[in-house]
């Protein structure tokens, strides 16, 4: 279905319908992915992206889209239908090529018993880390995604999205190492990589189970792409990353029948090879990383997404500035078919809407 006859210039992405349709065959990319992935490898997905004729606009814009619906971030993160309406508005307004849920890095931690704080218009954060010793872990059960914390909120949103749109629906979770950092404290987790790797492994096994249960539920609700954000893993050395993050992510990739994108915040320049080795279909890099260097190092079958600065570019520049920066990067990366333009990290909720419009239009029109 990807090979549909299309007028030149080839724009497979725009040919993908955006409205609700009852016939699965009208969902070329979204519907195909789950069963295509089982039969082909990431090479095909990468070349699919390369052949699309233009770069996809597959970014998460839910947080800034709250401005469009006049809702607060908190309202969205507490109610699946509200979140769905916000993302729907974003997809329709900016004609996106994929629909992603709003990322919230505290969902799993909360379901596992961490206390969290939820400001009205800012990302929630974890304020207590319940696991101090092995005994704390033994009493922990893997949360049921349909019952515990706000996991059901996100599942509901994905359910609505996959019914509403023919685009690939993206859901996400936090990476095992990042979750372990929340459960035991970031400094403690970092120190445990050296002082107590055995205990850390036990926690990571638990985190892996939590992630897998949550992601399998997403799969069931119709998510076609999975984004794993092992946010804090960039603090690790390549060796420690392989041991405490990559190894677990690899197991998630192997057990899911979906393309997985792996995002790491901050400077992950030293982890490019390790990230690709997890088997992720796509790696997503933050603004401190040199994209040209990353694309040179990554195999051609891995889509490398990144990395315009969410703050310096998206928040602080005006529309013209954003368009210029976007164009500059698109031009620099023009020879890499596996490059996917993206902000380096989650966009701030108050990103000026004009800037998003400028970005989206620039990407869509660039040939």
């Amino acid at each position, binding site marked *: 279905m990807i090979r549909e006859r299309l007028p030149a210039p080839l724009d497979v992405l725009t040919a993908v319908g955006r409205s609700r349709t009852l016939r699965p065959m009208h969902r070329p990319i979204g519907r195909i992915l789950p069963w295509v992935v089982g039969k082909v490898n990431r090479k095909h997905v990468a070349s699919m992206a390369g052949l699309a004729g233009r770069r996809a606009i597959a970014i998460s814009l839910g947080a800034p889209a709250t401005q469009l619906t006049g809702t607060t971030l908190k309202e969205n993160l507490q109610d699946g239908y509200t979140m769905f309406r916000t993302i729907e508005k974003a997809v329709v307004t900016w004609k996106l090529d994929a629909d992603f849920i709003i990322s919230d890095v505290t969902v799993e931690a909360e379901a596992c018993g961490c206390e969290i*704080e939820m*400001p009205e*218009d*800012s*990302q929630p*954060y*974890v*304020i207590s880390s319940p696991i101090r010793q092995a005994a704390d872990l033994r009493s922990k059960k893997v949360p049921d995604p349909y019952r515990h914390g706000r996991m059901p909120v996100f599942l509901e949103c994905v359910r609505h999205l996959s019914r509403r749109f023919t685009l690939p629906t993206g859901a996400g979770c936090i990476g095992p190492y990042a979750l372990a950092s929340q459960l035991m404290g*970031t*400094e403690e987790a*970092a*120190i445990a*990589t*050296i*002082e107590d790797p055995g205990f850390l492994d036990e926690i990571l096994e638990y985190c892996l189970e939590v992630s897998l249960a949550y992601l399998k539920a997403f799969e069931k609700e119709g998510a076609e792409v999975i984004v794993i954000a092992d946010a*804090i893993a960039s*603090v*690790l*050395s390549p060796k*420690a990353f392989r041991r405490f993050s990559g190894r677990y992510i690899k197991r998630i990739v192997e057990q899911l029948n979906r393309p997985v994108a792996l995002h790491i*915040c*901050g400077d992950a320049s*030293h982890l490019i090879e390790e990230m690709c080795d997890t088997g992720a279909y796509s790696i997503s890099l933050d603004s401190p990383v040199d994209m040209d260097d990353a694309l040179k190092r990554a195999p051609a079958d891995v889509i490398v997404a990144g990395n315009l600065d*969410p*703050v*310096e570019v998206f*928040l*602080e520049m005006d529309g013209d500035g954003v368009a210029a920066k976007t164009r500059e990067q698109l031009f620099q990366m023009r020879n890499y078919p596996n490059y996917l333009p993206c902000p380096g990290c989650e966009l*701030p*909720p*108050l990103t000026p809407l004009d800037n998003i419009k400028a970005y989206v239009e620039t990407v869509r029109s660039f040939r």
Partner: protein
Amino acid sequence: MDNTESIKKDLERAIIDGKMHETPGITQEALDLGLAPRELMDEVLTPAMEVVGEKFEEREYYVPEVLVSARAMQACLDIIRPMLFEENEQAEATIAVGTVKGDIHEIGKGMVCMVLEGAGFNVIDLGVDVAPEKFVEVVQQNVDIIAMSSLMTTTRDYMGDTILALSEANLRQKVKVMVGGAAVTPGFAQEIGADAYGVDCNEALRIVKEMIC
């Protein structure tokens, strides 16, 4: 003489290698041999942390390695710090460090604390999720510099609020303000009226040294 030299070497090695369980013992041994706390601070702790800082810059060390070294240094410092004060010594400067309100990112802030402490400054670690009022409160005591961290664009405005609160309390002239963290840019630092912006812990140390000159 040889003994004291070799024990200094041992302590330096233990800090660089992050042997946090060994440093208290070695420190005690060194003190028993008659080494002065000030001597340990200037000739062992500070150079050791400099080596750690260099290794971090050269990417031989990553955050976990630095944190373990910092804990090792901390264990030593816990023993000698009261003695330094007994000798009635004054630190060159007192710096209060914290991550702003609504933000719980502690790694970067912790690294700044440890680098400054290793360089012999008196550091007050205010922790994370620190409200502007809290910063004002510590400035009322004897603080020369405050350092704020923010990793979220939704929390970085509290840096400006803190500076404003300092002005309102007529304390702005009394302290220097430095800021950092992934959500902060040099332009933003200037906009809110901070005195300096640092990209990482090593730069924070350079800035502090410049500020107290």
